[in-house]
C-alpha cells in the first residue's frame, strides 16, 4: 500500500503517462517466457532491485535510473543522455521471448471464468454510529499515514463455479445455497483484513460456520435478479470474527453471463486498531464484477500468488 503513496502527486502521474511506458509487476509471479526472465535477470545484474522498487529502463534492457534519488526529473535527464540508439522510436529491436514454458508461479486465469474485484477498506464509525471511510490510512507497524484507499484483490470463479450459481428454471422466491467450495473460498481468502497490508488467509479449521444464499427476486425473459445474503464466523471458536454479507446479483440470459455481482461483507466487530489514532476499525469488503474489456481488473488472488500451494488451496485442484 505504501508504494502507492508515491502516486499521490498528480504531476508525477501525468509525467509518467506522457513520457514513459508504465509497467507493473508482482515479483512473486514469474513469467513463463524465457526471454522475459532473461531480460529481468539482465536488469538485476546491472543492480536493479525488484522487491519494492521503481526505476526506468530501456526497451533493450539497460537500467537507466533507480528510486534512490526519487526524482523523476533526474531519471528522465539520465534517459535523455542515452545514445539515440536506445531512445529513437522504432530503432531498438525486441528479440522474440521464446516459447511459453508454463511455470507454477505464473498462474493463469481459468478459462471462461468469472472474475470479481474485491476492495478491502478499514471503516470507522462517526459520532452518530455511521460507518465512514476515513480520509487517512495508517499502515501497520510503521504507523505511516497515507491518503486512504481500499486495498484490492481478485476473486476467481471457474466456469463450473459460476455456472453452479445459475438456476435452470428460476422462479421468484427460489432460494439457492451457494455451494460449499465457493463459500469456503470467499470465507477463507476474501473475508480477511487486508485493509492496511497483505491480508493473510484463514485455515479450513478456522471457518466456524456460515452460509451464503441467493434468492431470486425478479425473472424476465432477459434477466434473472437475485439478492445475496449470508454470514460467516471465522477464527478461534472462543473469539470468532463474524461477518454479515449482503448483495445483489444479475444474470443475463442472452449471454449466459452474470452482469452484476455486488456484495458487501461487514465485520460485526472491529478487526484492528488504526495504528496512528488507536481507533478500532471495522472491516468492509466490497465485491464487484470485473469490468468487461478492462484486463487489469482481473487480478490474481493473493492466495494464489502467495506460494506454490496457493492455486490448489484456492481453486481446490
Amino acid at each position, binding site marked *: 500500500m505504501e508504494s502507492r503513496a*508515491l502516486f499521490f502527486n498528480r504531476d*508525477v502521474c501525468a509525467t509518467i503517462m506522457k513520457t*514513459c*511506458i508504465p509497467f507493473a509487476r508482482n515479483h512473486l509471479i514469474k513469467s513463463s517466457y524465457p526471454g522475459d526472465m532473461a531480460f529481468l535477470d539482465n536488469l538485476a545484474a546491472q543492480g536493479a532491485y525488484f522487491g*519494492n522498487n521503481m526505476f526506468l529502463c530501456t526497451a533493450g534492457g539497460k537500467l537507466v535510473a533507480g528510486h534512490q534519488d526519487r526524482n523523476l526529473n533526474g531519471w528522465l535527464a539520465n534517459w535523455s543522455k542515452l545514445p539515440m540508439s536506445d531512445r529513437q522510436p522504432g530503432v531498438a529491436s525486441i528479440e522474440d521471448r521464446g516459447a511459453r514454458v508454463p511455470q507454477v508461479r505464473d498462474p493463469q486465469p481459468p478459462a471462461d471464468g468469472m472474475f470479481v474485484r474485491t476492495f478491502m477498506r478499514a471503516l470507522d464509525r462517526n459520532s452518530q454510529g455511521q460507518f465512514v471511510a476515513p480520509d487517512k490510512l495508517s499502515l501497520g507497524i510503521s504507523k505511516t499515514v497515507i491518503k486512504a484507499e481500499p486495498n484490492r484483490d481478485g476473486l476467481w470463479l471457474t466456469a463450473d463455479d459460476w455456472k453452479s450459481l445459475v438456476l435452470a428454471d428460476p422462479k421468484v422466491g427460489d432460494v439457492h445455497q451457494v455451494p460449499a467450495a465457493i463459500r469456503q473460498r470467499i470465507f477463507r481468502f476474501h473475508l480477511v483484513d487486508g485493509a492496511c497490508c497483505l491480508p493473510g488467509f484463514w485455515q479450513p479449521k478456522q471457518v466456524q460456520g456460515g452460509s451464503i444464499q441467493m434468492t431470486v427476486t425478479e425473472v424476465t425473459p432477459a434477466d434473472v435478479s437475485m439478492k445475496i445474503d449470508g454470514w460467516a464466523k471465522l477464527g478461534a471458536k472462543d473469539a470468532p470474527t463474524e461477518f454479515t454479507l449482503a448483495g445483489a446479483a444479475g444474470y443475463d440470459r442472452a449471454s449466459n453471463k452474470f452482469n452484476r455481482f455486488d456484495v*458487501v461483507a461487514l465485520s460485526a466487530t472491529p478487526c484492528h486498531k488504526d495504528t496512528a489514532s488507536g481507533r478500532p476499525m471495522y472491516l468492509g469488503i466490497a465485491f464487484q464484477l470485473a469490468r468487461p474489456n478492462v484486463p487489469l481488473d482481473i487480478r490474481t488472488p493473493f492466495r494464489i500468488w502467495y506460494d506454490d500451494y496457493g492455486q490448489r488451496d484456492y481453486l481446490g485442484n
Partner: protein
Amino acid sequence: MQKAIRPIVAACCLAVSIGGAGCSRTTPSEPAVVEAPKKVKQPERTGLAAAIEALERESADDKAAPSVAIEPVPQAAAPMALNPKAVEGPSPAVTPAVAAVRSPSVYTADELLGLHEVIRPRPGEALWAEIPWITDLWEARKKAAAEGKPIFVWSAMADPIGCT
C-alpha cells in the same frame, strides 16, 4: 480479531517489514502453518515512511518539493481524472450508508449494500489506477521501442495494482 495466517515475509510495503504484524490486532495470533515463499529479499528501507510523515507535518506554505519528485504529495484539490475511462465507478460524494448505532448483523440488506459505495475506490482517490499500466513485459518493451520511451518499472513483492 483473531489473525488469519499472515504473510511471513515482508512483501507489501515499501518501507515496512511486515513480519506477520502488518496491522495491529486486538487479540493474539495463531502460529502460521503455511510455509512462506523462500529466498525472498526483505524490502529496502527507503526512508519513504519518514518522508510521508514529514509531509504530514509540513505547513501548507512549504513549496520545497519539485513538481515531479517521486514523493507523496497529498492532493487537496478536487479530483480531476487524467484518464476518465479508467476512473472507478460513479462519482457522487460518498455519504455514510448506515445511520444508526446498531450491530452490523442487524442491518438490512439494502443498508449493507449501501456501504458498497463507501468501500469502493472513489474517483481521484487512487491516482495510480489512472495510469494505463502494462503487465506483460514483452508488450511493454515493444511499445517502449516503438515510441522511443523508457519503461517505468513498478515492481513489488506483491501485486502493485492488486493486493499489496
